[in-house]
């Protein structure tokens, strides 16, 4: 929000130099976003619009920081006529409007406003128009309360009504836009039409022009949530609507209308004829108990009650005696809507004292062991193993333009290609692989990330692991290479066996009964090929709960035998492995495929497979003869069951 340094200094004469002011506001109050000439751009927090979104409010804060005084801008106009019967005001919906004040003036002279006023407006990025419009803007800047002036002679019935809009009603605003309203929107109306969208923008019907002679000055207190909803719905967002949206204090109405009255009398030569102020319920005084020991424990400093009291007094708090010598009762300044609790008082004291002066102190707490997050540790472990295997980690966007059957859709997407939440990591990893192949022959990347699904009426989010291996030249063994990495990974994290099973265009990855995910092998554009595996990490986390158990180191030596087989029936390797294991369950401890040769040119589909079988007994050293016997047995079964011949 923009402020004029000159006006701040006018209200609080002890305001320091611009440079010093900027630094002090930053340290003790709010962030100064920019200083440019006379203009201070200050970030007003959402809870300080009642008291601090005005020159008066900021000047009071400057006075508190400087331990100085701010001038009172709230001068009462000399004589106030009451209830002359010229105007009447009615609030039809008290939830919409807590207070509505109106003042009727005769014989206004419309001309330009004085230079001092124009300078302030310009510093605050507002364009001077004429004395009447400028006064309303100036009062808003100075006091923080928007006001509005109607051409009284254009109002029908001489009555100002605050009500909800009627069905189908609309207001043509000052900038000639027709704004359609519904029954939840508030308006200011005469007896016939809506004149103004309450708290947001004035309308054409009773607009002030150069010919205007008699006016109705109005100031209201409108419900923040209602103004906020209407402004957002209609898209008409104004300085006034932003202020009202933050819920202004109803006392501001009085300050603003008094200030505007003085200015209108002085600058427009107008005569105040009648006033009305409908104000059914004034805000109650807030009194908060404050104990200095509690404060010192909360902040971690040692302030005397007197010092704490001084800081509060500087900010306009009234102090009364409390129950003990360490207690006081604190009455909150009228406009400080943000202060309701002890903690709010503590904040005001410690920020004026200075956060930078609070000395760091280690906490004293009972030692309770930190929790051990299995899932998190597993993810860390997976990352380390994959990095060891040569894969690099990537982070991809959670959004995608690709809709799957179970995709969750964003209600307000920022772009078409970011309309859905990803249901897989594969899509992005394929892009990553293709991209990186521009810079090398191989690319190995992985991602651990959340994927999202619709699940009936509910939703689900899951951790997935995606691993991509991309190469420029396709290699039929690519999938086996990925499988090799997966086996190594899963073994490291405690899953001994995985199986791959073809399913349509993909390969299913299983462990025991569980389906862990899928792998695919596909060309990626013109750049090359990629095989990508995507695994459900939640399933894996669940599977890895078993403990590792020590197995005794074998006492007796093992022996190896290699067998080479010719296969013309496209037997799968796992079939051979199971036959070998089942045929000699007592002595076979391990079987490995050590050579695999496929020659397309000779006989179609003829393969040659070499297995290395490791034999061992637990209770003795196996003799060569025994092993030969086992091998014979195995070869016989392989021939009988699978038709495999020894080469």
């Amino acid at each position, binding site marked *: 929000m923009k402020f004029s340094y000159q006006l701040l200094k006018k209200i609080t004469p002890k305001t320091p130099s611009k440079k010093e002011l900027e630094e002090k506001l930053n340290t003790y109050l709010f962030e100064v976003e920019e200083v440019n000439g006379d203009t201070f751009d200050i970030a007003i927090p959402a809870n300080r619009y009642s008291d601090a979104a005005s020159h008066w409010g900021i000047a009071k804060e400057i006075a508190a920081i400087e331990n100085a005084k701010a001038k009172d801008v709230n001068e009462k106009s000399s004589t106030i006529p009451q209830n002359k019967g010229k105007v009447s005001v009615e609030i039809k919906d008290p939830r919409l409007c807590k207070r509505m004040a109106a003042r009727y003036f005769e014989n206004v002279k419309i001309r330009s406003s004085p230079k001092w006023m124009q300078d302030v407006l310009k510093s605050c990025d507002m364009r001077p128009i004429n004395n009447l419009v400028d006064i309303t803007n100036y009062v808003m800047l100075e006091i923080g309360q928007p006001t509005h002036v109607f051409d009284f002679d254009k109002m029908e019935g001489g009555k100002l009504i605050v009500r909800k809009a009627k069905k189908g009603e609309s207001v043509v605003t000052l900038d000639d836009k027709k704004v359609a309203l519904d029954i939840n929107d508030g308006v200011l109306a005469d007896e016939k039409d809506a004149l103004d969208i309450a708290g947001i923008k004035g309308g054409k019907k009773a607009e002030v022009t150069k010919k205007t002679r008699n006016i109705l000055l109005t100031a209201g207190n409108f419900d923040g949530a209602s103004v906020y909803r209407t402004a957002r719905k209609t898209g008409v967002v104004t300085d006034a609507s932003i202020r009202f949206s933050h819920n202004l204090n109803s006392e501001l109405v009085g300050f603003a209308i008094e200030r505007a009255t003085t200015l209108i009398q002085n600058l427009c030569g107008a005569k105040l004829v009648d006033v009305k102020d409908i104000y059914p319920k004034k805000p109650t005084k807030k009194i908060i108990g404050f104990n200095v020991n509690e404060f010192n424990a909360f902040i971690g400093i040692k302030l005397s009650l007197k010092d704490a009291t001084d800081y509060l007094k500087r900010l306009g708090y009234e102090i009364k005696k409390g129950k003990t010598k360490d207690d006081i009762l604190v009455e909150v300044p009228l406009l400080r809507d943000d202060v309701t609790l002890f903690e709010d008082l503590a904040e005001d004291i410690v920020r004026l004292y200075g956060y930078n002066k609070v000395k760091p102190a280690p906490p004293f707490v009972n030692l309770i062991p930190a929790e051990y997050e299995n899932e998190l540790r597993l993810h860390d472990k997976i990352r380390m193993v994959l990095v060891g295997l040569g894969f690099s980690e*990537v982070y991809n966007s959670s959004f995608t333009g690709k809709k799957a059957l179970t995709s969750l859709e964003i209600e307000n997407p*920022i772009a078409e290609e970011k309309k859905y939440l990803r249901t897989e990591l594969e899509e992005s990893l394929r892009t990553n692989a293709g991209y990186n192949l521009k810079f090398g022959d191989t690319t190995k990347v992985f991602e651990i990330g959340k994927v999202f699904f619709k699940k009936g009426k509910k939703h689900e989010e899951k951790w997935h692991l995606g691993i991509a291996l991309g190469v420029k030249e396709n290699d039929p063994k690519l999938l086996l290479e990925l499988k090799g990495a997966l086996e190594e990974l899963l073994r490291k994290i405690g899953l001994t066996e995985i199986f791959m099973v073809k399913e349509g265009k993909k390969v299913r990855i299983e462990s025991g009964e569980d389906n862990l995910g899928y792998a695919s092998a596909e060309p990626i554009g013109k750049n090359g090929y990629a095989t990508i595996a995507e695994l459900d990490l939640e399933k894996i986390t669940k599977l890895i709960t078993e403990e590792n158990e020590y197995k005794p180191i074998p006492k007796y030596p093992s022996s190896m035998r290699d067998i080479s087989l010719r296969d013309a029936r496209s037997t799968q390797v796992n079939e051979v492995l199971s036959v070998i294991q089942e045929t000699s369950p007592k002595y076979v401890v391990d079987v490995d495929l050590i050579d695999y040769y496929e020659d397309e040119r000779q006989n179609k589909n003829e393969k040659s497979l070499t297995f290395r079988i490791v034999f061992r007994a637990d209770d003795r050293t196996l003799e060569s003869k025994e092993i030969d016997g086992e091998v014979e047995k195995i070869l016989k079964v392989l021939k009988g069951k699978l038709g495999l011949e020894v080469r």
Partner: protein
Amino acid sequence: MKEIEAEALTEITNAKEELALEKIRVKYLGRKEGIVTEALRSLKNLSLEEKKRQGPQINALKAKLEKTLEIKKRDLEEGKNKKTLDIDITRPGEKIIKERKITTGHLHPLTVLENEIKDVFRSMNFSVLEGPEIESEFYNFDALNVPPDHPAREMWDTFWIKSENAKTSKEKLLLRTHTSPMQIRYMESHEPPLQIVVPGRVFRFEATDQTHEVNFYQYEGLMVGKNISLANFKYVIETFLKRIFGKDIEFRYRPSYFPFVEPGLEIAIKFRGKWLEMMGAGMVHPNVFKAVHYNPRDYRGFAFGGGLERLAMVKYNIPDIRLFYSGDTRFTNQF
């Protein structure tokens, strides 16, 4: 012409690889000496009648060959692919890759930094946990003392998730705009004293540029106990930042506003001669304690939250936030 067509189609059918296919294309359709191209070119020497007769024929042949070549090319590509999938996948995975260079991979810089953060906080007995990325309006806003229909919500531009029957704020879904909902979730199921740090992905409806991404990472801290003070907060956070940026950094605190803390403040550090905003923080607001059914008079606590990318950009001198999500290994492999 028929002969040429028959010959060309046979050659295409028999082609075994893309290179051969390309040779066939040059032979018939090549711009310089392709047989069909030549035939088209020689049309201009013919009589008008012959032109009318032969022209369409040759053009049709050209189109047919182009299409057949295209289909064959696709077949070959798919064939290669098919071969990959046709492999006996029950064979053991390849453990020794002969021709590829053996190198280790790299962690993403945000992981590297997150690990550092986790280490520092674990060393101070904080538990590390994560939370859901899809949140309800209740956890993201209401329970954190951010009122509905209030402009304070504009501090967090939100992505909402389409859902038909969401009536209450516990049902209305969004992508969490900060990691703070985990304060609520954790306190709902735990009693103080507690010390947690929550790293995780968050989302904001903001145009992407050098310093803004629609998804990014935060880390959230919360410590609650009987006698926790603002001075304790300063101790913990300064210890943390010194471990990350070195002992010589300076600190600056200024008042700030977040609805879920009171007092609220912001922390900046002076690093390599520059003041840099690091995070927002404050003492847990009594309304937040009320939302999790603690008695606000019984407990005090502090909370803080910062951006992980911001930390990484400062520490590693990274100029553009978009690099983190580029998937470019030339970036990742520097860490």
